[in-house]
């Protein structure tokens, strides 16, 4: 252990750093403790952000400071007693007390959190969720549930924007997609909404079943399946089984499934409607134009021809947009309303969001954290024309035992998109991605960056007119 690492543990800032770590891991004991145990230098923890001084954070920091102060005082009192009484045991106890205070309190802080969760938060949540079951059951609106390992928030927003052109719509907020958030959403409704859009954020086996029983959806969109939350699900099949409970809840009626996700194919049944870049159900896609500033295509059935334009980029968006248009049509929206609604769809922050810096296009996909998104992104990079192509990533997190295989595949996908320069962040997976690149005879340049924050905040120096840069995923402090 280096001197700097030791001093960072005994620094006056240490309680604030611990509070930051708790806040960044959303006050969850396990990820917090994992982070705590692997950290050696606490002076480098607050790299990307600083502690947001909420009342909860302030309370925890005060608890830590008070506990640490009391332990130090107790240690000093024992030492003084040892001097007065000329006995050794006070010293034997006092010195370890003084030395151990950061270690003791950074662990003890978990106890009030867990107690609070067991005694206060969870009973309240159970009560709220029970109430919401009644509210959802009584509500007469069409209820569209959006589930899947990725792309849920985007799909929810696409549905909200488009259907909102012709119907009164309410949707769950941002990526707040667990039972308690559904309950809060139910409480916020006025009962007059015509369509409700509810995002299902699966995290452990049985989640989707519980959400389905509570919210009682009438329609379902399953956006795809990829390795995620494997710490709980263990296998992608187990995750798929949970997610597809939603389809069986609806007995296969009004179920839209992303056919471009390879892993969902084993779960698809004949009465499901699959969507992909060729269309959805009876709706067929033609006249596709894809560019950095958006895409356009025609979607036609024997009843209607829709001319659709969106600011979303990438061929992989055609399927979701087709599904949205088909659902909107089923819900009675007119051609004009659907076209107008789709035209309003645009990239969400940090999700395939293009912006221009002095003639160079940067595609910000830093909220993308799964291999399916990597596939879509690298496909776009391959398809777009540029003077120079740059690909930037730190890799993916939470891939469990699949980590090596996924990152080798990432290397392959990146190599196939033929960038001139690949920039990786120096971390546990960069060498695996590099290996994947080499195995697929990547001929461009590879750069490994030691300081991601410095790199991202100076990206304008890396680019010139005519460049296209794709940035996929970004690691927060607790993964760095």
């Amino acid at each position, binding site marked *: 252990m280096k001197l700097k690492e030791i001093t960072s543990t005994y620094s006056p800032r240490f309680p604030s750093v611990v509070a930051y770590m708790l806040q960044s891991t959303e006050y969850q004991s396990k990820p917090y403790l994992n982070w705590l145990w692997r950290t050696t230098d606490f002076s480098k923890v607050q790299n990307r952000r600083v502690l947001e001084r909420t009342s909860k954070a302030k309370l925890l920091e005060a608890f830590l400071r008070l506990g640490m102060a009391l332990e130090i005082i107790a240690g000093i009192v024992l030492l003084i007693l040892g001097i007065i009484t000329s006995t050794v045991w006070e010293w034997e106890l006092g010195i370890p007390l003084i030395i151990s205070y950061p270690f003791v309190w950074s662990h003890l802080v978990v106890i009030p959190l867990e107690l609070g969760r067991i005694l206060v938060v969870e009973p309240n949540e159970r009560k709220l969720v029970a109430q919401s079951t009644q509210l959802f059951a009584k509500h007469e609106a069409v209820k569209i549930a959006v589930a899947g390992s990725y792309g849920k928030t985007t799909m929810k927003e696409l549905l909200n924007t488009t259907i909102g052109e012709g119907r009164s719509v309410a949707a769950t907020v941002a990526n707040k997609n667990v039972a308690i958030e559904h309950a809060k959403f139910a409480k916020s409704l006025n009962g007059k909404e015509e369509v409700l859009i509810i995002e299902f954020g699966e995290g452990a086996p049985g989640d989707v079943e519980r959400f389905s029983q509570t919210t009682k959806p009438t329609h379902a969109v399953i956006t795809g399946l990829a390795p995620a939350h494997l710490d709980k699900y263990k296998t992608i099949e187990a995750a798929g089984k949970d997610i597809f409970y939603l389809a069986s809840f609806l007995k296969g009626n009004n179920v839209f499934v992303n056919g471009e996700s390879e892993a969902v194919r084993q779960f698809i049944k004949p009465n499901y409607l699959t969507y992909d870049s060729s269309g959805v159900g009876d709706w067929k896609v033609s006249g596709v134009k894809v560019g950095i500033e958006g895409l356009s295509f025609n979607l036609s059935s024997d009843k209607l021809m829709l001319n659709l334009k969106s600011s979303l980029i990438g061929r992989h968006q055609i399927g979701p947009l087709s599904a949205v248009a088909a659902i909107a049509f089923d819900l009675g929206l007119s051609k004009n309303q659907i076209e107008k609604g789709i035209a309003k769809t645009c990239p969400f922050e940090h999700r395939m969001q293009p912006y221009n810096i002095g*003639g160079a296009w940067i595609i910000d996909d830093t909220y993308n954290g799964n291999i399916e998104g990597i596939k879509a992104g690298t496909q776009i990079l391959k398809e777009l024309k540029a003077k120079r192509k740059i690909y930037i990533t730190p890799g993916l997190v939470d891939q469990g035992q699949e980590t090596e295989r996924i990152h080798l595949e990432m290397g392959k996908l990146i190599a196939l998109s033929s960038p001139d320069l690949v920039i990786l962040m120096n971390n546990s997976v960069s060498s695996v991605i590099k290996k994947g690149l080499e195995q697929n005879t990547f001929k461009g340049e590879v750069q490994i960056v030691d300081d991601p924050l410095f790199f991202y905040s100076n990206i304008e120096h890396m680019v*010139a*007119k005519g460049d296209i840069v794709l940035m996929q995923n970004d690691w927060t402090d607790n993964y760095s």
Partner: protein
Amino acid sequence: MSKPTVAVIFGSRSTEHDVSIVTAIASIIRPLELSGKYSVVPVYIDKKGQWFSDPKLKDISLYTSGSIDTFLDKQKPISLRIGVGMEIVLRNGLKQRSIKVDIVFPATHGTHGEDGELMGMLEMANVAYVGCDLPSSVISMDKSLAKIIAQAAGIPTSRFVWFYARDFKTNLELVLEMIKPLKYPLFVKPVHLGSSIAISRVNNESDLINAIEVAAHYDDKVIVEEAVTNLIEVTVPIIGNDDPRPALVEQPMVKGEDFFDFDSKYMHGGKKGKSAKRGAQGYSKLPAPLPKKLYEKSEQTALEVYKAIGCKGIARVDLLIDSKTNKVYFNEVNTLPGSLYAHNFREAGISNVKLVEELVNLALERRTGKQKLTTSFSTSYLKQY
């Protein structure tokens, strides 16, 4: 394998001291570090001429906050060990350590740096360095000498005369007699200063004397030149050693009768008299909206000047165009364009990182070429003595 060490030297005793800080930190040090290929050492020369080196000197806020003097008070100046290469010697109490420098990136604008003084020292140190060498820096820094060289290479310039400041003080009549054949309006400039410092445009003799007084206050040599009529002013940044190539021909956004002084170039984002964004960028049309032939002629003239003067690495050639006759005149060369003219290179498809990488490579290429030259010659001269 350890990364090559690049020492970026900036600041210095120059009227363009502050411009140099911005060039060094924003346009050289940051991209060099982003490339991940070099270990970058800042070498700052303060306004008194003392040399310092510390990693904290890479932080622009140290200068913008005004805390640089307090910081330097606590630092010990460095010394250099030169001979077969160059080493920076740092002292901390009784401890001493040295950093071996592989490449020097000069970022000093104007006097005591860009004028060739620094290049002379680097030649003696036998270290690879970025940009123009000693002779081309000296020539380019002297506006009259650069024009004389250009004329000798058959490149047109506007009519001009030059004289020493002391001549103006001791023999005004002779100086005015020299200027008499020139047609007003005239430009009066100190020959060695850049960033448009102390430049005046005059329409008559009484204004002329005032303007010369101003120029002579800043420099020991003054140039007076005819203004080009129907003026289109363009500038061409160029990169390369023996095979130079232009970036884009750029047109500063000024009226024919106007010109850029220091404030409008650096303080008002190029918009004369208006509050605007900081920095020298954004005050020009890029690329210059010239007819194709005139655009190519400008590129060609700039390249001819670059070669005639013997520029290496990077330089920016300023040209004056008479839009009626389509005649292109050479005006002056800047061997270290402010902020490396990175905005222009970026528009031409060269990122800041690529630009500095290429400049470092050009420096190494030039040094390799020089090392192939024979520098000794055996004679029996000493035996005969």
